[in-house]
C-alpha cells in the first residue's frame, strides 16, 4: 500500500530510487545534494536497496561510471549540484550522445564565483543544450514522482535519452513536506524491467563511442533531436499513465488561473508555490501562472496554447545569461511567442539564494500591468537587488 509520510525532498528522491530498483549508483557528495546520496547509502547498507554503490572521487567520474554501468545494461542513478554538474559538463554530452537512459537529480545551486551553496537554477540551465531531458519540479512529491517518470521516459525505445530531474536546493531538498510514497507493486506495473537494445556483452560484442567523422556526425545529432521530439509525446503519455496508476499527474506544463488571464507569470521549480500563494491572495483572475515543468524538450505548442489569451508575460527566473542581460527562459519564451504580439518581460530573481518574496512577485505583476496599460516599463528587472551596493 502507498503510505504518506513527512519527509525532506532528498528522502523523497531516495525513496524513488529504491522503488525503481536502481542497480548501480555512482555519486560524489556536494551540498545541497548530500542528503540524497546519504539516504541511498543507508538503504544500500541496510540491504533495503540491492545496488552497487560506487563512491567515486569526482562528479566527472560519477557520470563516467554511470555511463559505463548504463552501457553494460544496468539501471543507474546519480545526483549532483552546481560545481558538480559543471564538472560533469563534458560527460553529460557523451551520455546523451551515446543515448544512455541515465537518471540524475540535480539539486539546483548557484555557480561559483563567488562560491555560494544556495539555490538558483543557473547550473542546470547552463546544461540545456547538453542533450538531456530536463524536468523542473515544484514539490517534494513531484520530485519523487518525477524520478519514477524519468526512468519510464528515458528507457522508452523511442527516446533513449538521459533525464535530469531538477529540484531547488534547500528549498526542496532540505524542506519537509508530506509525501505519498507509492508501493512497489504500483511502480512495477508502471516501470517495466530495463532491456536496452545494445549493451556491452561478450555474447554480442558492440563498439560504443566510436569516432564520428564529418560524414556521420550530423546524423547522430539529428537523431538526438528526433528522440527529443519523441520524448515530448512519451513524457505526456508517461504522465497520463502515471495519473491512472498513482492518482497524480503534472503535465508538461502547469496552467494556474490562466482561463481569463491577460497577464501571465512564467517560472520553473519551487518558485511556482510562492507565486500561487501571491495569486490566491490577490484574487485577480486577470493574472495567472504558467509553470514550465518540462524544459527540455521544450513544449513549444503547449506553451503557445496556454498563452493564447495572454497579453503580457513576465518570466521570473533564477538564472541570467551574462552578456545577454536576461534569463534563458525569457529568451526562449520570446522565441516561442515570436509574432504573437505578446509582450515578454523578464525578472531575474533569487540568484545565489536571495529570497524571492511575495512583494517581489507583486512588483513583477505591477510592472506587467503597467505594460498592459501601454506604459513603457523596463524589460528586465532584478528582484531584490541592492542598487546601493553596486
Amino acid at each position: 500500500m502507498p503510505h504518506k509520510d513527512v519527509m525532506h525532498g532528498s528522502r523523497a528522491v531516495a525513496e524513488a530510487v529504491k522503488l525503481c530498483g536502481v542497480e548501480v549508483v555512482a555519486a560524489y557528495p556536494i551540498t545541497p545534494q548530500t542528503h540524497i546520496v546519504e539516504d541511498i547509502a543507508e538503504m544500500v547498507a541496510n540491504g533495503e536497496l540491492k545496488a552497487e554503490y560506487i563512491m567515486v572521487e569526482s562528479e566527472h567520474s560519477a557520470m563516467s561510471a554511470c555511463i559505463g554501468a548504463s552501457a553494460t545494461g544496468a539501471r543507474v542513478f546519480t545526483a549532483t549540484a552546481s560545481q558538480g554538474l559543471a564538472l560533469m559538463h563534458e560527460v553529460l554530452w557523451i551520455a546523451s550522445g551515446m543515448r544512455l537512459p541515465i537518471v540524475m537529480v540535480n539539486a539546483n545551486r548557484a555557480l561559483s564565483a563567488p562560491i555560494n551553496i544556495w539555490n538558483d537554477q543557473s547550473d542546470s540551465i547552463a546544461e540545456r543544450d547538453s542533450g538531456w531531458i530536463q524536468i523542473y519540479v515544484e514539490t517534494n512529491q513531484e520530485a519523487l514522482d518525477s524520478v519514477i517518470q524519468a526512468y519510464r521516459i528515458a528507457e522508452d525505445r523511442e527516446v533513449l535519452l538521459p533525464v535530469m530531474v531538477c529540484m531547488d536546493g534547500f528549498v526542496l531538498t532540505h524542506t519537509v513536506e508530506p509525501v505519498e510514497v507509492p508501493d512497489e507493486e504500483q511502480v512495477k506495473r508502471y516501470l517495466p524491467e530495463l532491456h536496452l537494445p545494445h549493451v556491452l556483452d561478450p555474447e554480442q560484442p558492440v563498439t560504443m563511442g566510436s569516432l564520428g567523422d564529418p560524414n556521420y556526425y550530423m546524423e547522430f545529432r539529428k537523431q538526438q533531436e528526433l528522440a527529443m521530439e519523441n520524448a515530448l509525446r512519451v513524457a505526456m503519455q508517461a504522465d497520463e499513465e502515471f495519473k491512472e496508476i498513482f492518482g497524480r499527474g503534472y503535465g508538461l506544463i502547469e496552467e494556474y488561473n490562466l482561463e481569463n488571464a491577460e497577464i501571465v507569470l512564467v517560472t520553473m521549480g519551487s518558485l511556482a508555490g510562492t507565486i500561487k500563494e501571491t495569486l490566491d491572495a490577490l484574487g485577480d483572475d486577470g493574472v495567472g501562472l504558467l509553470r514550465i515543468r518540462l524544459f527540455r524538450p521544450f513544449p513549444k505548442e503547449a506553451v503557445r496554447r496556454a498563452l493564447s489569451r495572454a497579453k503580457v508575460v513576465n518570466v521570473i527566473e533564477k538564472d541570467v545569461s551574462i552578456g545577454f542581460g536576461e534569463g534563458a527562459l525569457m529568451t526562449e519564451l520570446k522565441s516561442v511567442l515570436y509574432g504573437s504580439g505578446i509582450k515578454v518581460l523578464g525578472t531575474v530573481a533569487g540568484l545565489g539564494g536571495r529570497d524571492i518574496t511575495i512583494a517581489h512577485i507583486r512588483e513583477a505583476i505591477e510592472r506587467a500591468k503597467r505594460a498592459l496599460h501601454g506604459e513603457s516599463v523596463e524589460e528586465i528587472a532584478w528582484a531584490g537587488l541592492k542598487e546601493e551596493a553596486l
Partner: protein
Amino acid sequence: MKVAADIPSYVKCRHVCGASLAANRCFKFRLNVKEVSEEELFAPGHRGCAGCGCTIAMRLALKVAGRNVIVTHATGCMEVVSSPYPETAWRVPWIHVAFENSAAVASGVEAALKALGKKDRVKVIAFGGDGGTVDIGFQALSGALERGHDFVYICYDNEAYMNTGIQRSGATPYGASTTTSPPGKESFGNRTFKKDMPRIVAAHGIPYVATASVAFPLDYMEKVRKALSVEGPAYVHVHAPCTPGWGIASEKSIEVARLAVDSGMWILYEIENGKSRVTYKPTVKRPVKEYLRMQKRFRHLSEEHIAVLQQYVDERWKEVFGEG
C-alpha cells in the same frame, strides 16, 4: 628490487607478433609461444601506422584476455585508429567515453557486471595512453585503484601526446624534442624526467603492478595474464614506440623498444602483492647513446645532456640491479 634468480633464455617471437618481425628474441616465460591464441580479437585493417607499437599492445593483450572481456578506452590514437564509424577493429565489447575517464568508466562497467550477476564470466580491461593515464586520467585511475575495482588497467606509453601531433606529456623522457618541448636557443628539449607512474600506482597497494615492453611480447602477455587473474585492481604499463613521434622507421620500432630495455631507459619488473621482481635483466648494458641515436626526437641532444640522461639511467640501474 631483486633480480629473478632464473635468468631466462630467449625464444623466437616471430610467430607471436607478426607485426614485429624485427624482434628475433624474446624472454621465455611461463606463457609459451605455442600457448598464445591465434585468434585476432583486435582485428587487422585498423588505421594504425605501420610499425605502431601501441596497436601491438592492444592486440597482444586481447590474445591473453580472450573473448569474455569488456574493454574501456581513453581518447587517443588507439581509439581513433580502431573505431572510425561505421568500422571497428574490436571483436570484443568496447566503449570509449572521454580522455580522462577510462578507469572511471571501467568502474561503472565492473559495478554493473556485479549488479547483473555477470561478474564471474566477464573481465574488464581499461586502456589509456600515457597522457590519458599519467596526466589527465590520473585522478580517475587513482580513484578506481583505491576503490578496489576488479579490473586491469593497461597504459600504453609512447611518451607524448601523439594523437594531437607529438606534444609532451608527463611521461616524456628528459631531453626529448616534442612540438611543445622543442629544442632552441633557450631549450634542449623536454626539461623533466619521465613520471614514475608504475611506482605511483604501486603506492596504492594494489595486488599487481607491472612494466612491460612490446619488444618482449611473452613477458608482456604473461603480465597481462597475471593481471587478469588477480582479484582487485591490476596495472600494466607497457612501453610502446610511436614511429612518427619518435622519428624512427616503421621496421625499427621493436628494435628501438628493445634497446630502451637493454640500455636501462625502461626496466621490466612486476610487483606482486607488494613483492618486487625484475623480470628481465639485460645481459649486456648498452649505452643510452645508442638508444638515443636511433631516434629523431633525441638527435639534437648535446654530449652534456646525454651524460645527464646516462647518469639518471645508471642511478636507476644501480638501484634495481645493484651494480654499475
